[in-house]
Protein backbone atom coordinates (compact mmCIF):
# COMPACT_ATOMS: atom_id res chain seq x y z
CA UNK A 1 0.00 0.00 0.00
CA UNK A 2 2.89 2.34 0.82
CA UNK A 3 4.42 1.74 -2.61
CA UNK A 4 1.07 2.26 -4.28
CA UNK A 5 0.64 5.63 -2.55
CA UNK A 6 4.18 6.67 -3.37
CA UNK A 7 3.93 5.63 -6.99
CA UNK A 8 0.49 6.88 -7.94
CA UNK A 9 1.43 10.47 -8.83
CA UNK A 10 4.45 9.56 -11.03
CA UNK A 11 2.35 6.81 -12.59
CA UNK A 12 -0.47 9.20 -13.46
CA UNK A 13 2.04 11.63 -14.95
CA UNK A 14 3.46 8.92 -17.20
CA UNK A 15 -0.03 7.82 -18.18
CA UNK A 16 -0.94 11.40 -19.05
CA UNK A 17 2.05 11.57 -21.39
CA UNK A 18 1.12 8.17 -22.87
CA UNK A 19 -2.43 9.41 -23.45
CA UNK A 20 -1.24 12.59 -25.16
CA UNK A 21 1.19 10.65 -27.32
CA UNK A 22 -1.14 7.82 -28.26
CA UNK A 23 -2.48 8.37 -31.73
CA UNK A 24 -6.25 8.14 -31.76
CA UNK A 25 -6.38 9.05 -35.43
CA UNK A 26 -3.89 8.85 -38.25
CA UNK A 27 -2.45 12.25 -37.30
CA UNK A 28 -2.96 13.54 -40.81
CA UNK A 29 -2.68 17.27 -41.51
CA UNK A 30 -4.79 18.69 -44.29
CA UNK A 31 -3.11 20.76 -46.98
CA UNK A 32 -3.69 22.52 -50.28
CA UNK A 33 -1.33 23.23 -53.15
CA UNK A 34 -0.24 26.86 -52.90
CA UNK A 35 0.96 29.16 -55.62
CA UNK A 36 4.44 30.61 -55.65
CA UNK A 37 3.13 33.93 -56.95
CA UNK A 38 0.94 34.45 -53.89
CA UNK A 39 3.97 34.61 -51.61
CA UNK A 40 5.75 37.80 -50.57
CA UNK A 41 9.32 38.44 -51.78
CA UNK A 42 10.92 37.28 -48.56
CA UNK A 43 9.47 33.77 -48.88
CA UNK A 44 10.12 33.63 -52.63
CA UNK A 45 13.77 34.47 -52.07
CA UNK A 46 13.97 31.82 -49.38
CA UNK A 47 12.65 29.19 -51.79
CA UNK A 48 15.07 30.34 -54.49
CA UNK A 49 18.01 29.50 -52.25
CA UNK A 50 17.63 25.78 -52.95
CA UNK A 51 18.03 23.55 -56.00
CA UNK A 52 16.62 20.24 -57.28
CA UNK A 53 16.24 17.75 -54.41
CA UNK A 54 15.96 20.51 -51.84
CA UNK A 55 13.20 20.82 -49.27
CA UNK A 56 12.19 23.36 -46.69
CA UNK A 57 9.44 24.96 -44.70
CA UNK A 58 8.41 28.36 -43.42
CA UNK A 59 5.52 30.10 -41.70
CA UNK A 60 3.43 32.73 -43.42
CA UNK A 61 0.03 34.25 -42.82
CA UNK A 62 -1.01 31.85 -40.05
CA UNK A 63 -0.02 28.67 -41.89
CA UNK A 64 3.01 26.48 -42.34
CA UNK A 65 4.27 25.96 -45.88
CA UNK A 66 6.36 22.98 -46.97
CA UNK A 67 8.11 22.90 -50.31
CA UNK A 68 9.89 20.26 -52.34
CA UNK A 69 12.11 20.96 -55.34
CA UNK A 70 12.64 18.37 -58.07
CA UNK A 71 14.34 18.30 -61.44
CA UNK A 72 12.26 20.26 -63.98
CA UNK A 73 11.14 17.05 -65.70
CA UNK A 74 9.95 15.46 -62.46
CA UNK A 75 6.92 15.85 -60.25
CA UNK A 76 6.00 15.09 -56.67
CA UNK A 77 3.28 12.75 -55.48
CA UNK A 78 2.44 13.60 -51.90
CA UNK A 79 1.49 10.42 -50.01
CA UNK A 80 0.94 11.74 -46.51
CA UNK A 81 1.32 14.86 -44.42
CA UNK A 82 1.09 14.43 -40.67
CA UNK A 83 2.68 12.76 -37.69
CA UNK A 84 6.17 11.46 -38.37
CA UNK A 85 6.92 7.74 -38.36
CA UNK A 86 9.18 7.97 -35.35
CA UNK A 87 6.57 9.91 -33.40
CA UNK A 88 8.75 12.99 -33.21
CA UNK A 89 7.19 15.94 -35.02
CA UNK A 90 5.54 15.83 -38.42
CA UNK A 91 6.58 14.95 -41.92
CA UNK A 92 5.66 14.91 -45.58
CA UNK A 93 5.87 11.50 -47.20
CA UNK A 94 6.27 11.80 -50.95
CA UNK A 95 7.46 10.15 -54.11
CA UNK A 96 9.27 11.77 -57.00
CA UNK A 97 8.14 10.51 -60.42
CA UNK A 98 8.79 11.51 -64.01
CA UNK A 99 6.48 14.24 -65.23
CA UNK A 100 4.86 13.06 -68.40
CA UNK A 101 4.03 16.63 -69.29
CA UNK A 102 0.39 16.44 -68.34
CA UNK A 103 0.93 18.37 -65.10
CA UNK A 104 1.90 22.00 -65.21
CA UNK A 105 4.57 22.72 -62.71
CA UNK A 106 6.14 25.96 -61.65
CA UNK A 107 9.78 26.07 -62.76
CA UNK A 108 12.02 28.27 -60.66
CA UNK A 109 15.54 29.49 -61.39
CA UNK A 110 17.07 28.74 -58.02
CA UNK A 111 20.52 29.62 -56.77
CA UNK A 112 21.49 25.94 -56.99
CA UNK A 113 19.87 25.28 -60.38
CA UNK A 114 16.47 25.16 -62.08
CA UNK A 115 13.81 23.16 -60.34
CA UNK A 116 10.11 22.28 -60.33
CA UNK A 117 8.44 23.54 -57.17
CA UNK A 118 5.78 21.77 -55.12
CA UNK A 119 4.46 24.09 -52.51
CA UNK A 120 2.04 22.85 -49.85
CA UNK A 121 0.09 25.09 -47.55
CA UNK A 122 -0.78 23.20 -44.37
CA UNK A 123 -4.03 23.85 -42.56
CA UNK A 124 -2.25 25.05 -39.43
CA UNK A 125 1.07 26.20 -38.06
CA UNK A 126 3.13 23.08 -37.55
CA UNK A 127 6.11 23.27 -35.18
CA UNK A 128 9.53 21.79 -35.84
CA UNK A 129 10.84 19.13 -36.12
CA UNK A 130 9.32 18.69 -39.56
CA UNK A 131 10.74 16.05 -41.88
CA UNK A 132 10.65 15.25 -45.59
CA UNK A 133 10.47 11.54 -46.20
CA UNK A 134 11.21 10.62 -49.81
CA UNK A 135 9.75 7.15 -50.40
CA UNK A 136 11.92 6.62 -53.51
CA UNK A 137 14.92 5.96 -51.24
Amino acid at each position, binding site marked *: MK*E*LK*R*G*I*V*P*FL*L*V*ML*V*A*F*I*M*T*DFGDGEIKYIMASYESLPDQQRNFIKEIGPGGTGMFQHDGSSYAFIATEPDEKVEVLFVG*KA*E*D*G*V*GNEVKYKVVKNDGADDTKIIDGRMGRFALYLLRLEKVV*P*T*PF*GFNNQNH
Partner: protein
Amino acid sequence: MSTQESIKQFDDYIKRLVRDLHLEEEEKREVEEEWTQHLYDHYSSLQKQGLEKSEAIQSVLEQFGDMQMIQTEVNQSYPSAIKSHIQKESVIGVLCIIASLIGPMILIGAYFQPYFISASLIALVFAYLVHRFIAKRQSDWRLSVIGLIAIYVFFFQLFKRMYGSSLSLDQYGAHLFTLDWNRLTGSGGLFEFVTIHMMWYVIIAMQFITINNYTPTWKRILNSSFQYWAMLLIGVFLAMFQSSGEWSVLFINVFILYAFLQHTISIKGITIFSQKVSRMFYRQSL
Protein backbone atom coordinates in the same frame (compact mmCIF):
# COMPACT_ATOMS: atom_id res chain seq x y z
CA MET B 1 4.75 -10.49 8.85
CA SER B 2 1.19 -10.18 7.76
CA THR B 3 0.02 -12.98 10.01
CA GLN B 4 1.53 -11.59 13.19
CA GLU B 5 0.17 -8.71 15.26
CA SER B 6 1.63 -5.29 14.56
CA ILE B 7 3.53 -3.78 17.48
CA LYS B 8 3.50 0.00 17.37
CA GLN B 9 6.67 0.40 19.43
CA PHE B 10 8.64 -1.74 16.96
CA ASP B 11 7.26 0.05 13.91
CA ASP B 12 7.96 3.49 15.38
CA TYR B 13 11.42 2.46 16.53
CA ILE B 14 12.43 1.13 13.11
CA LYS B 15 10.96 4.16 11.32
CA ARG B 16 12.97 6.58 13.47
CA LEU B 17 16.06 4.41 13.16
CA VAL B 18 15.95 4.17 9.38
CA ARG B 19 15.01 7.81 8.79
CA ASP B 20 18.48 9.17 9.56
CA LEU B 21 20.49 6.55 7.72
CA HIS B 22 22.50 7.85 4.74
CA LEU B 23 21.10 5.27 2.38
CA GLU B 24 19.16 5.26 -0.86
CA GLU B 25 15.38 4.81 -0.48
CA GLU B 26 15.52 1.23 -1.73
CA GLU B 27 18.33 0.33 0.65
CA LYS B 28 16.39 1.91 3.51
CA ARG B 29 13.39 -0.26 2.64
CA GLU B 30 15.55 -3.38 2.65
CA VAL B 31 17.15 -2.54 5.99
CA GLU B 32 13.74 -1.66 7.43
CA GLU B 33 12.28 -5.01 6.41
CA GLU B 34 15.24 -6.98 7.72
CA TRP B 35 15.33 -5.27 11.11
CA THR B 36 11.58 -5.35 11.57
CA GLN B 37 11.61 -9.08 10.95
CA HIS B 38 14.44 -9.48 13.42
CA LEU B 39 12.55 -7.58 16.15
CA TYR B 40 9.38 -9.62 15.64
CA ASP B 41 11.28 -12.94 15.62
CA HIS B 42 13.03 -12.04 18.83
CA TYR B 43 9.73 -10.93 20.37
CA SER B 44 8.06 -14.26 19.48
CA SER B 45 10.87 -16.27 21.04
CA LEU B 46 10.67 -14.22 24.25
CA GLN B 47 6.92 -14.73 24.44
CA LYS B 48 7.41 -18.45 24.01
CA GLN B 49 9.71 -18.28 27.02
CA GLY B 50 6.74 -16.88 28.97
CA LEU B 51 7.52 -13.16 29.11
CA GLU B 52 4.68 -10.62 29.31
CA LYS B 53 3.97 -8.61 26.17
CA SER B 54 5.25 -5.26 27.50
CA GLU B 55 8.24 -6.94 29.10
CA ALA B 56 9.13 -8.74 25.87
CA ILE B 57 8.84 -5.53 23.80
CA GLN B 58 11.05 -3.65 26.25
CA SER B 59 13.61 -6.43 26.27
CA VAL B 60 13.72 -6.70 22.46
CA LEU B 61 14.28 -2.96 22.03
CA GLU B 62 16.95 -2.85 24.72
CA GLN B 63 18.83 -5.78 23.25
CA PHE B 64 18.60 -4.40 19.72
CA GLY B 65 20.80 -1.53 20.80
CA ASP B 66 21.04 2.21 21.17
CA MET B 67 19.45 3.93 18.20
CA GLN B 68 22.14 6.56 17.75
CA MET B 69 24.92 4.02 17.97
CA ILE B 70 23.32 1.81 15.31
CA GLN B 71 22.82 4.80 13.02
CA THR B 72 26.44 5.88 13.43
CA GLU B 73 27.71 2.36 12.77
CA VAL B 74 25.59 1.88 9.66
CA ASN B 75 26.42 5.33 8.30
CA GLN B 76 30.12 4.66 8.78
CA SER B 77 30.16 1.17 7.32
CA TYR B 78 28.00 1.84 4.26
CA PRO B 79 29.38 4.17 1.61
CA SER B 80 27.51 7.47 1.66
CA ALA B 81 24.35 7.34 -0.41
CA ILE B 82 25.11 10.78 -1.82
CA LYS B 83 28.62 9.72 -2.81
CA SER B 84 27.31 6.54 -4.47
CA HIS B 85 24.62 8.51 -6.22
CA ILE B 86 27.08 11.06 -7.60
CA GLN B 87 29.45 8.27 -8.67
CA LYS B 88 26.76 6.44 -10.59
CA GLU B 89 25.30 9.55 -12.23
CA SER B 90 28.78 10.73 -13.23
CA VAL B 91 29.63 7.43 -14.91
CA ILE B 92 26.29 7.36 -16.75
CA GLY B 93 26.62 11.04 -17.72
CA VAL B 94 30.12 10.58 -19.13
CA LEU B 95 29.06 7.50 -21.11
CA CYS B 96 26.05 9.36 -22.55
CA ILE B 97 28.18 12.34 -23.58
CA ILE B 98 30.80 10.10 -25.20
CA ALA B 99 28.06 8.24 -27.09
CA SER B 100 26.53 11.54 -28.23
CA LEU B 101 29.90 12.71 -29.50
CA ILE B 102 30.93 9.64 -31.43
CA GLY B 103 27.46 8.33 -32.36
CA PRO B 104 26.59 10.88 -35.08
CA MET B 105 30.11 10.59 -36.54
CA ILE B 106 29.96 6.80 -36.79
CA LEU B 107 26.33 6.43 -37.82
CA ILE B 108 25.82 9.24 -40.33
CA GLY B 109 29.38 10.46 -40.85
CA ALA B 110 28.57 13.84 -39.30
CA TYR B 111 31.35 16.26 -38.40
CA PHE B 112 31.54 17.41 -34.84
CA GLN B 113 29.07 20.16 -33.95
CA PRO B 114 29.00 22.03 -30.61
CA TYR B 115 25.37 21.05 -30.13
CA PHE B 116 26.42 17.38 -29.82
CA ILE B 117 27.59 18.40 -26.35
CA SER B 118 25.07 21.12 -25.47
CA ALA B 119 22.02 19.09 -26.58
CA SER B 120 23.27 16.00 -24.74
CA LEU B 121 23.94 17.95 -21.56
CA ILE B 122 20.44 19.44 -21.57
CA ALA B 123 18.96 16.01 -22.34
CA LEU B 124 20.99 14.50 -19.50
CA VAL B 125 19.61 16.99 -17.00
CA PHE B 126 16.07 16.19 -18.15
CA ALA B 127 16.75 12.45 -18.10
CA TYR B 128 18.12 12.68 -14.57
CA LEU B 129 15.11 14.66 -13.30
CA VAL B 130 12.57 12.42 -15.03
CA HIS B 131 14.24 9.26 -13.78
CA ARG B 132 14.72 10.42 -10.20
CA PHE B 133 11.42 12.16 -9.64
CA ILE B 134 9.02 10.28 -11.92
CA ALA B 135 10.14 6.90 -13.27
CA LYS B 136 12.06 5.62 -10.25
CA ARG B 137 9.44 6.80 -7.76
CA GLN B 138 6.93 4.36 -9.16
CA SER B 139 7.76 0.93 -7.77
CA ASP B 140 4.36 -0.69 -7.29
CA TRP B 141 4.17 -3.80 -9.45
CA ARG B 142 0.43 -3.44 -10.18
CA LEU B 143 0.88 0.08 -11.53
CA SER B 144 3.92 -1.14 -13.45
CA VAL B 145 1.83 -3.75 -15.29
CA ILE B 146 -0.86 -1.23 -16.27
CA GLY B 147 1.73 1.38 -17.22
CA LEU B 148 3.76 -1.07 -19.29
CA ILE B 149 0.74 -2.04 -21.36
CA ALA B 150 -0.24 1.60 -22.02
CA ILE B 151 3.29 2.62 -22.95
CA TYR B 152 3.80 -0.40 -25.18
CA VAL B 153 0.60 0.40 -27.08
CA PHE B 154 2.12 3.77 -27.94
CA PHE B 155 5.41 2.28 -29.15
CA PHE B 156 3.60 -0.40 -31.10
CA GLN B 157 1.58 2.33 -32.81
CA LEU B 158 4.80 4.07 -33.80
CA PHE B 159 6.16 0.86 -35.24
CA LYS B 160 2.93 0.12 -37.06
CA ARG B 161 2.92 3.57 -38.60
CA MET B 162 6.30 2.82 -40.16
CA TYR B 163 4.89 -0.24 -41.90
CA GLY B 164 1.43 1.06 -42.59
CA SER B 165 -1.27 -1.53 -43.03
CA SER B 166 1.16 -4.12 -44.39
CA LEU B 167 2.61 -5.03 -40.98
CA SER B 168 2.41 -8.76 -40.43
CA LEU B 169 3.07 -10.85 -37.34
CA ASP B 170 6.29 -12.16 -38.93
CA GLN B 171 7.57 -8.65 -39.55
CA TYR B 172 6.72 -7.66 -36.02
CA GLY B 173 8.50 -10.74 -34.66
CA ALA B 174 11.57 -9.98 -36.76
CA HIS B 175 11.85 -6.63 -35.02
CA LEU B 176 11.83 -8.05 -31.54
CA PHE B 177 15.23 -9.72 -31.55
CA THR B 178 18.48 -9.50 -33.44
CA LEU B 179 22.17 -10.05 -32.86
CA ASP B 180 23.08 -8.26 -36.07
CA TRP B 181 24.96 -5.13 -35.05
CA ASN B 182 23.97 -3.32 -38.26
CA ARG B 183 20.29 -3.62 -37.36
CA LEU B 184 20.80 -2.23 -33.88
CA THR B 185 21.64 1.26 -35.04
CA GLY B 186 20.22 3.45 -37.78
CA SER B 187 20.02 7.10 -38.77
CA GLY B 188 18.01 7.63 -35.58
CA GLY B 189 20.86 6.16 -33.51
CA LEU B 190 19.61 3.66 -30.94
CA PHE B 191 15.98 4.60 -31.52
CA GLU B 192 15.17 1.44 -33.48
CA PHE B 193 12.31 -0.85 -32.50
CA VAL B 194 14.58 -3.87 -32.24
CA THR B 195 17.26 -2.00 -30.29
CA ILE B 196 14.97 -0.74 -27.56
CA HIS B 197 13.72 -4.31 -27.17
CA MET B 198 17.22 -5.78 -27.00
CA MET B 199 18.11 -3.26 -24.29
CA TRP B 200 14.95 -4.23 -22.44
CA TYR B 201 15.99 -7.90 -22.48
CA VAL B 202 19.36 -6.97 -21.00
CA ILE B 203 17.61 -5.04 -18.21
CA ILE B 204 15.41 -8.08 -17.49
CA ALA B 205 18.46 -10.36 -17.49
CA MET B 206 20.17 -8.00 -15.03
CA GLN B 207 17.33 -8.55 -12.55
CA PHE B 208 18.16 -12.26 -12.45
CA ILE B 209 21.83 -11.54 -11.82
CA THR B 210 21.34 -8.82 -9.21
CA ILE B 211 21.22 -10.11 -5.65
CA ASN B 212 18.30 -8.71 -3.71
CA ASN B 213 16.73 -10.80 -1.00
CA TYR B 214 13.87 -8.47 -0.22
CA THR B 215 12.11 -7.82 -3.50
CA PRO B 216 11.15 -10.86 -5.61
CA THR B 217 12.76 -11.00 -9.05
CA TRP B 218 9.43 -10.84 -10.90
CA LYS B 219 8.52 -7.62 -9.11
CA ARG B 220 11.88 -6.10 -9.94
CA ILE B 221 11.46 -7.12 -13.58
CA LEU B 222 8.07 -5.42 -13.76
CA ASN B 223 9.21 -2.26 -12.01
CA SER B 224 12.47 -1.88 -13.93
CA SER B 225 10.61 -2.55 -17.20
CA PHE B 226 8.07 0.15 -16.40
CA GLN B 227 10.80 2.60 -15.45
CA TYR B 228 12.72 1.89 -18.67
CA TRP B 229 9.74 2.24 -21.02
CA ALA B 230 8.46 5.30 -19.14
CA MET B 231 11.82 6.98 -19.67
CA LEU B 232 11.65 6.18 -23.39
CA LEU B 233 8.12 7.53 -23.63
CA ILE B 234 8.97 10.80 -21.90
CA GLY B 235 12.15 11.05 -23.98
CA VAL B 236 10.11 10.87 -27.20
CA PHE B 237 7.62 13.33 -25.75
CA LEU B 238 10.30 15.88 -24.85
CA ALA B 239 12.02 15.38 -28.22
CA MET B 240 8.88 16.79 -29.85
CA PHE B 241 9.67 20.18 -28.36
CA GLN B 242 13.21 20.42 -29.70
CA SER B 243 14.10 23.04 -32.27
CA SER B 244 15.44 20.65 -34.91
CA GLY B 245 15.46 17.02 -35.95
CA GLU B 246 19.10 16.66 -34.89
CA TRP B 247 18.34 17.87 -31.38
CA SER B 248 15.37 15.51 -31.19
CA VAL B 249 17.47 12.51 -32.19
CA LEU B 250 20.15 13.37 -29.64
CA PHE B 251 17.50 13.90 -26.98
CA ILE B 252 15.88 10.52 -27.55
CA ASN B 253 19.20 8.72 -27.69
CA VAL B 254 20.41 10.22 -24.42
CA PHE B 255 17.13 9.15 -22.78
CA ILE B 256 17.42 5.59 -24.14
CA LEU B 257 21.03 5.20 -23.08
CA TYR B 258 20.44 6.85 -19.70
CA ALA B 259 17.46 4.59 -18.94
CA PHE B 260 19.41 1.52 -20.02
CA LEU B 261 22.50 2.36 -17.98
CA GLN B 262 20.46 3.15 -14.88
CA HIS B 263 19.42 -0.48 -14.75
CA THR B 264 22.66 -2.08 -15.85
CA ILE B 265 25.32 -0.15 -13.95
CA SER B 266 25.75 -0.76 -10.25
CA ILE B 267 27.81 1.15 -7.73
CA LYS B 268 29.23 -2.13 -6.50
CA GLY B 269 30.37 -2.90 -10.05
CA ILE B 270 31.91 0.54 -10.44
CA THR B 271 33.74 0.19 -7.12
CA ILE B 272 35.14 -3.23 -8.04
CA PHE B 273 36.18 -1.91 -11.46
CA SER B 274 37.87 1.19 -10.04
CA GLN B 275 39.68 -0.94 -7.44
CA LYS B 276 40.94 -3.27 -10.17
CA VAL B 277 42.12 -0.31 -12.27
CA SER B 278 43.90 1.32 -9.33
CA ARG B 279 45.54 -2.02 -8.43
CA MET B 280 46.69 -2.37 -12.04
CA PHE B 281 48.24 1.11 -12.00
CA TYR B 282 49.81 0.43 -8.63
CA ARG B 283 51.46 -2.76 -9.92
CA GLN B 284 52.74 -0.96 -13.01
CA SER B 285 54.23 1.83 -10.94
CA LEU B 286 56.23 -0.65 -8.84
